[in-house]
């Protein structure tokens, strides 16, 4: 209950405060979103598998966002930023779809 309220509060804060994303941070925002979605789906699946752990969830979320941003940052410096972003999105996208499929199997038994 409290975590759900926290999620709603986070969304509300983001919507109300309209945080101005600095220009240098903007290339990493899409990657951060994909990493966040990955962590979210992973968490839901773990919950359904009965092995959910709050610490793992938070740490994986934060580290996913940071590592994804770091990879893209390095790529930008080395001139392969766009390719690495694509790579990150593909890998995380595969994981998201896999976890979504597992969630679907849990929920609908199909």
């Amino acid at each position, binding site marked *: 209950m409290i975590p759900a309220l926290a*999620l709603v509060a986070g969304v509300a804060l983001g919507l109300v405060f309209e945080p101005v994303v600095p220009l240098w941070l903007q290339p990493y925002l899409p990657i951060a979103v994909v990493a966040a979605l990955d962590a979210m789906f992973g968490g839901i699946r773990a919950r359904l598998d009965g092995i959910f752990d709050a610490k793992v969830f938070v*740490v994986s979320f934060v580290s996913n966002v940071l590592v994804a941003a770091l990879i893209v940052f390095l790529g930008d410096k080395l001139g392969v930023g766009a390719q690495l972003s694509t790579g990150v999105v593909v890998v995380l996208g595969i994981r998201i779809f896999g976890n979504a499929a597992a969630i679907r199997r849990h929920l609908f038994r199909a």
Partner: protein
Amino acid sequence: MIRGKGEHAEGAPDPIVRRALELRGDEHTSHRPRIGNMSTSLLVELFTDHLDKGYAAAARRRKDESPKGRRRATAILAVGLLLLGFVLAAAYRATLRQAPDSERARQALVQDVQSGSALSDALQRRAQQLSGQLSRERDSALTESRAGDRTAADVRRLEAAAAQRAVHGPGIAVVVGDASGTEQVDPNTGQRVPVPADDTGRIQDRDLQSLVNALWAAGAEAVSVGGQRLAPTTTIRAAGEAILVDLRPVQSPYTLAAVGDPATLLPRFADSDAARRFQSYTGLYGIQFTVRAAKDLRLPAATDPDLRYASPVAAPTTVSGSTPGSAPAPRPSGGGR
């Protein structure tokens, strides 16, 4: 499942894999064969293990289900979800704000261009009005004496030569246009985008120049390009990819209107080198080129030339006597052709 794959690899006919297994010494490997540092499991893992390994590890490790531990877990989860929601909302906001920004900038630019060209059009109309009024005033002032009549005829002749009067009459209209580009499906967006034809199919400023010269040579009395009347000092030139006639841009397809007797103008123009060349270009490069006779063409006056030598009379009190004699002499008209 993993072992199944390993056994499959063991029976694989690939000599490199067999050799690698021999080198390892244990053929009943519990994992996929490793060749050097390369693990064939990387891609398989990517497609099969979607869940973070940490969850399983934590589940194995977790023994204490004390209320204190659970409360701490809830707090951590709450903070994590707060962050997650914040990131998602911030990204949503940023995207939402960005899109209208570019759209608004574009709209503002379009509006600027539109109001600018509207203002320019209005000024042009006003200038035409004023020059019409001016010539009317001058004509009425000149009709008072015989010398004035002669001067007025001179002025009219010079004005016609300098394209300072709107004219209308029969003539021919030549339409010439760039080769039409093909359409292609953009691989990124899936939208159909027009692909401009390569430069060989694009009309250049010198093409229009040669056509205009052919029209003059065929006996045209007045010529306009894209609605811009050509005066003796008018230039047709390129600026980037646009063609400017008298510093105003014209766009493909270009309509060249020439006033003159169509009975002589049409055959003479059609027989000219330029026309024949363009006729062959239609087949070669796919450009557009048509010539037709027109009953009544209306050509506007050219924009006023910058007077380089004439200057306004200081005190316009004695209009009738002195100005008619002195005005035509310093006119810089008649130049070019």
